[in-house]
């Protein structure tokens, strides 16, 4: 376990030295956290809404198979083609087959416009599509920047959080073959023109799903830019990829979830475009895709249901926990080295990829301060889950000395007299180390392990 742990620490250490990225991450996350807090005040009783949201999500996970069946039956009746994918490879296969069908129909190379989708990141979809010779363009502004930089998103909501407008200008200038000013409006205008062409030529639009709604067999997709609407409206084929847990039963439940999602994510009352899609274009409608496919992705989720960790599946991917996390705020998303970062990533990755040591070690990437749990709109006990994961992974071979030490400690602190004595001892040590600064920086013997990474704090008399 140790050499793996070094890998995360090494990455974190590298990011800690990147002052520019740290400043950008801190700036953005501070704004988002403040916006969230203001936006929740727009609700008469935010805590009650959060309780309700928790109950809704909890029930969805508890009845997941029935709920998915009910949704799938309705969706199919609406003309949506439902695919169930057990693994990432299964999901990729479905998309590749759909792309091949377009190629066979004479649209070669197949052009794909993609909206923001973390599920697609999870299955490394772009690499697979490009390897098969298809053209994929990310159309969310942040994702487009990341694609040009050949990087991975580093925040759930703001994927290019680590890029400045100067970085963006450089990337866009290379892409355009002419100078693009480092001005946000100019950059957005370039992206609009460049991606408009991609939308109009696309054979397939791929998006994620925020919520499936069982009652009507619909999927709900929220976004601010309009690229999601483009991907779901203009190409002949729309393919949506959803994590199998992202489902609610009724529209009344959707109301509760929507009241929290945008507020927690960006501080908006609602995202600019909240799309509810219930099928392909109907005969009496003027436009829309001829085919709508929804891929229901398992990829490790079903195995979590029913375990002590399954509250992790309540997540609606708002990113609020990232914005308040002292670890995320200091090292950013890339240091985690996984698709999901921040507290939810630290909880989820070890569960989704239990056989991957790099994912497994992430439960260590937390101070257990609980800020994440405090802001979670669906009340996932995030820091508690992290602790439970650590318990699970802790080697059961603690030395006799360690076991005895902890036993004695717990006995000592359970009795007032011995507790008071221990406080006096600690105070004496602190007083001594304040007088002898050398001791505070390098304690002798086994205590040196403690001062290797820390300095004993100075105390006033």
């Amino acid at each position, binding site marked *: 376990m140790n050499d793996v742990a070094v890998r995360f620490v090494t990455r974190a250490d590298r990011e800690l030295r990147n002052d520019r990225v740290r400043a950008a991450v801190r700036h953005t996350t501070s704004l988002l956290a403040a916006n969230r807090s203001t936006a929740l005040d*727009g609700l008469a009783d935010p805590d009650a809404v959060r309780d309700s949201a928790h109950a809704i999500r909890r029930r969805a996970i508890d009845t997941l198979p029935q709920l998915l069946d009910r949704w799938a039956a309705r969706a199919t009746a609406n003309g949506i083609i439902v695919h169930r994918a057990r693994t990432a490879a299964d999901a990729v296969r479905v998309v590749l087959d759909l792309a091949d069908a377009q190629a066979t129909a004479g649209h070669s190379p197949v052009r794909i416009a993609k909206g923001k989708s973390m599920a697609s990141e999870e299955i490394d979809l772009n690499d697979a599509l490009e390897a098969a010779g298809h053209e994929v363009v990310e159309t969310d502004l*942040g994702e487009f920047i990341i694609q040009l930089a050949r990087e991975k998103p580093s925040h759930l909501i703001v994927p290019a959080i680590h890029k400045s407008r100067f970085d963006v200008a450089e990337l866009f200038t290379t892409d355009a073959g002419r100078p693009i000013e480092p001005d946000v409006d100019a950059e*957005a205008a370039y992206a609009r023109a460049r991606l408009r062409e991609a939308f109009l030529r696309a054979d397939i639009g791929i998006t994620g799903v925020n919520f499936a709604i069982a009652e009507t067999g619909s999927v709900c997709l929220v976004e601010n830019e309009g690229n999601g609407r483009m991907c779901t409206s203009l190409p002949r084929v729309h393919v949506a990829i959803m994590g199998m847990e992202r489902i609610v*039963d009724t529209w*009344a439940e959707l109301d509760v979830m929507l009241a929290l999602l945008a507020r927690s994510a960006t501080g908006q009352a609602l995202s600019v475009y909240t799309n*509810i899609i219930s099928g392909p274009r109907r005969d009496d409608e003027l436009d829309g895709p001829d085919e*709508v496919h929804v891929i229901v992705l398992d990829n490790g989720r079903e195995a979590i249901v029913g375990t002590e960790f399954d509250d992790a599946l309540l997540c609606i991917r708002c990113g609020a926990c990232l914005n308040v996390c002292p670890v995320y705020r200091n090292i950013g998303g890339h240091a985690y080295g996984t698709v999901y970062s921040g507290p939810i990533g630290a909880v989820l990755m070890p569960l989704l990829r239990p056989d991957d040591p790099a994912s497994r070690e992430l439960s260590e990437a937390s101070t257990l301060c609980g800020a994440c749990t405090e802001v979670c709109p669906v009340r996932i006990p995030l820091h508690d889950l992290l602790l439970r994961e650590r318990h699970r992974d802790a080697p059961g071979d603690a030395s006799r000395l360690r076991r005895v030490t902890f036993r004695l400690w717990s006995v000592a602190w359970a009795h007032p007299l011995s507790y008071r004595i221990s406080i006096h001892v600690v105070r004496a040590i602190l007083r001594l180390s304040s007088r002898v600064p050398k001791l505070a920086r390098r304690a002798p013997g086994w205590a040196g392990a403690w001062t290797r990474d820390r300095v004993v704090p100075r105390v006033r008399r």
Partner: protein
Amino acid sequence: MTPALPAPVHYSVPRRGIDGFCDAWHAIGGTSERITSLDERADPTPTADLVHATAAIAQTGSIVIDSSRNARAASLLPDRCAFVIDASTIVDTPGDVLRERARWWPGAMPSQIVFVTGPSRSADIEMTLTVGVHGPGRVHAIIIG
């Protein structure tokens, strides 16, 4: 198992009716005008892209449109877009639409319903707000009644 209906979401700001909607719509960057019939419009220029709203929501400044009444592209491809709202369809909260589905869509569901809440926007670069990224950057609400 009989799932209890989740309680309605209440809002702390008492925005209601046409004024409430206009306040919220302006706050997120929209413009609006109020008329008694479409014929009396002073500036007929954007009428080519008039999009008919199914409903509008005062608390959030949202306009609900659907693909059975409008081409999807009409409210998506142009730089500016004008929505026509019948004042009698302005409700208080998103829940008044989401929880009363049968009132707004009594028959088969349209293939797409969109709650439009302001102009297309992005803050993906340095958290700097920019409008009109992909969808219309200027959105205008025409309220009849």
